[in-house]
């Protein structure tokens, strides 16, 4: 197991290296740069001023030197400084990451629990009304994109019903309270969760139907166990195994989704930060964001593998 982890971590080094190359290339290939982004709105600056600003930021050097400088910083644990406000990228991300993790964590957990439960119920009621209506809602769920779901929720619950706030993480002016924060969390988390709950439901339903056909389920029934014991102890445990894969696959798309959702709900996480930095051509922040997401996704995949071996005693890594 330990050697498996080590091997995986070793493999992730070249992958992360590849990520830095791609990220840097993309950031560099973006039209315009930070200096131009700063001055567009103002009066036209002189060529000298622009060149001077570029010199300050190191943008006048050849591309490979810029890349090597950046990599050099990263190896020292330093993600560089924002072109816009000069703050350390590491600090900015550290400040905002918890918000994003809160949003994503709650969304993913809710999606997993709701989706799995409904999927199992749907399978147990196969070809009955419950099953059909759940399958239909699931179909609707996977068909609505995150951002549209977000807008829809804002319209219904914030604008029309006025039950929940439509943006931010807390009510402006009030002192921070967890309850207030959670109220603000509901809509963006729901917007992210519904689509994924529908996906979990589909897989849980298919998984449970397959498990129901397994001989060990018949054995459990032949023992005279209660239906609830059969479903939960013998069924659900086995359904969770394929769902772990789906869970792992949902993570990267969740980062993409959170960028959009954080923008819609003005949720001050790293997704919103990313959009701002793209607008400002703040390449250190853009690159920092992508690198951190890549690392998180990799660690999550590793955690998925570990979860596998916990759930399925037949899986052993060596």
């Amino acid at each position, binding site marked *: 197991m330990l*050697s498996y982890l*080590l*091997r995986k971590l*070793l493999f992730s080094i070249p992958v992360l290296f590849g990520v830095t190359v791609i990220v840097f290339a993309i950031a560099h290939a973006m039209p315009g740069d930070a200096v131009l982004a700063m001055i567009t709105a103002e009066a036209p600056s002189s060529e000298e001023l622009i060149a001077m600003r570029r010199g300050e930021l190191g943008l006048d050097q050849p591309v490979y030197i810029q890349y090597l400088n950046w990599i050099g910083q990263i190896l020292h644990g330093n993600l560089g400084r924002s072109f816009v406000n000069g703050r350390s990228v590491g600090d900015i991300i550290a400040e905002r990451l918890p918000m994003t993790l809160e949003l994503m964590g709650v969304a993913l957990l809710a999606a997993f629990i709701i989706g799995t439960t409904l999927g199992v119920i749907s399978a147990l009621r196969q070809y009955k009304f419950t099953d059909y209506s759940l399958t239909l809602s699931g179909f609707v769920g996977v068909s609505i994109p995150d951002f549209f779901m977000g807008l829809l929720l804002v319209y219904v619950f914030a604008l029309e019903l006025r039950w929940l706030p439509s943006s931010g993480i807390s009510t402006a002016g009030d002192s921070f309270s967890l309850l207030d924060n959670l109220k603000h969390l509901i809509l963006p988390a729901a917007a992210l969760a519904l689509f994924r709950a529908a996906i979990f439901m589909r897989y849980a339903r298919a998984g449970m139907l397959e498990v129901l056909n*397994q*001989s*060990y389920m*018949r*054995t*459990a*029934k*032949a*023992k*005279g*166990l*209660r239906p609830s*014991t059969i479903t939960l*102890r*013998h069924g659900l*445990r*086995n359904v969770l*195994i394929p769902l772990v894969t789906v869970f792992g696959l949902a993570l990267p798309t969740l980062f993409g989704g959170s960028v959009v959702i954080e923008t819609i709900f003005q949720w001050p996480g790293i997704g919103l930060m990313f959009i701002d930095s793209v607008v400002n051509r703040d390449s250190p922040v853009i690159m920092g964001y992508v690198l951190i997401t890549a690392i998180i996704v990799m660690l999550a995949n590793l955690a998925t593998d570990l979860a596998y071996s916990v*759930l*399925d*005693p*037949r899986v052993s890594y*060596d």
Partner: protein
Amino acid sequence: MMGADALAVERTAEGTGQQSVLSVQGLSVEFGPQGSAVYAVNDVSFELAEGESLAIVGESGSGKSVTVQTLMGLIRKPPGRVTSGRALFRGRDLLAMPDSELRQIRGRDIAMIFQDPISSLNPVLTIGLQLTEALREHQGLSEAEAERQALDMLDLVGIANGPQRMRAFPHQFSGGQLQRIGIAMALVCKPSILIADEPTTALDVTIQAQIVELVGRLQKQLGMAIIWISHDLSLVAGFVDRVAVMYAGSIVESAPVDALFSATTHPYTIGLLNSIPSLTADNTRLVPIKGAPPNVTLPPTFCAFAPRCHFAEARCREAKPLLEAVGGGHTTACWRWREVDHLSRSTTTAQSVKPVGAAGQEALLTVTDLKVHFPIRRGVLRRQVGAVHAVDGVSFEVLRGETLALVGESGCGKSTTGRAVLGLEQPSAGRIVFEGKDYAGATGEELKLRRRDMQMVFQNPFGSLNPRMTVGRIIGEGLRAQKIGTRATRDIRVSELLALVGLREALRNRYPFELSGGQRQRVGIARAIATNPKFIIADEPISALDVSIQAQIVNLLDDLKTRLGLTYLFVGHDLSMIRYLSDRVAVMYLGRIVEIGATAAVFGTPLHPYTRALLSAIPVPDPKAGGTRRRIVLGGGVPDPSKPPSGCHFHPRCPKATDICGKVDPQPRDLGSIASGRHLVACHHAGEA
């Protein structure tokens, strides 16, 4: 239905006077929508006395499993539907009670063990939990008390080291051990009826012998009644009291075990017995039952066996015969049983003599010291830390025109040997000389050319045919690949091949799923002989087929051998079939050949202790033989092939092992005589008095 009721009453009356614990009366089960239903069980009645053991024997689709699963409330409703009948367990009707009530009986009073021990245990739960949960459910025991009883039961079924094993998961056990655990799980609440649904079908013959013995012993200790479901008449002959033979959802013959085998009255039962080659007598050509088991989609208003029956007449196709008493607790459902009785089995079989192929002395294939090792890799750098010794130094030759059989239990390397000969597996060492040319490790064009002369018939006719290709394309594919003939000549060749294997031309454009198992295997054989090969490797070609179909395929292989001058390497585990169809036999154990010689010599005077045990474990279709034959039951299972025992691989299980066996690897010695031919045995003690 009236007849069934009357019969049930009559049978209870004529019973042995023992009290019946289970009485099934006129049970009928259908599947699917009304109108296009499958009539899985039709009007089945039987009695089970306290402590009695009853076997229900039938082929796949005969309704034997559905019958018992209905009693247990295990069939899914829908699509399943009980259309009539009662099943009285100590006077209470199992079919009428709500599931919550039946649940109290399931597992406590009536328990069940299943066919495949690996898939019938939950892979993610510990053995301990699975053993104790029924106790806790039914008897409300505390965890500690349930655990104590489960440990006692594990001890009883012969699982050593109980406390430790309770924490293990199913994949950490061998198939034989798992079936023991399955039995412990079923018996943990001390039921009064145990239903065993083909519990040994997925197991090797020596493990089967262990399980049969175990169940027999436990039956005596716990005094329960047993319903043993099987497709194998020979197996149940040895240990049950009564046998009911099912066909197409109905019981066609039911009798005390002696009477069933000595005074068989139903043509189907006779057909089944004729399909099994004898292990001791001289074999005449097998007499298969023609046709295939029916799809039970027609209402049971006629004798379902009529289309396959030599005795069928108009009446059989018009009305269904009910079970009729023959006397002495023997009932049969045949209009003509009185006449059938007089046609002795020998007259129907003696007419045809098994064709004898003329085996030459020239070796077509010579395999020398073949090894196939699969590497085991571990660690950060995936270094090879060991190897599974699937084939570990095997030498044999196949003479032109003969059939050499490779036999052994699962994991002995027989199939891998076959695949390596065809180049489907890369040999790690050794030579494979075919027609004078060594091509071990050959690849590309060389191998392709070789495969013109050498083809394989695979075990599973369901998995080995591409479901997206028509029968015609499957058969012709080898010709296309080898660029033999033109499109037109290939078409003609496919027609020839279809005729040769006994398939209708019309099947050419069908897909595999539309064919029965027997038909599919015929397609597999046609595909193999398409390129006119000289040599066929048949890898367990009949083991996935029903008993009555097996004989058809074996006869086909026999015919093709004579007509086309083929040479066979036959890989199998069914020893009576191998005795019937092979000229020479090689017995394998854990990657090595332990004994090889003429079939008559190996079966007549087996010299290796493993061969002896293997032969003694084969069930024979004779209830009287059970007592007289001495069965050598081997302890334990086949060891892990990545860590084979030192010296003779068989020594840890061998009743004759001495010190030398654990140290020195025995070399094959020729102990044959002029009469028996070469008879090589790899045993230090072979030939000792």
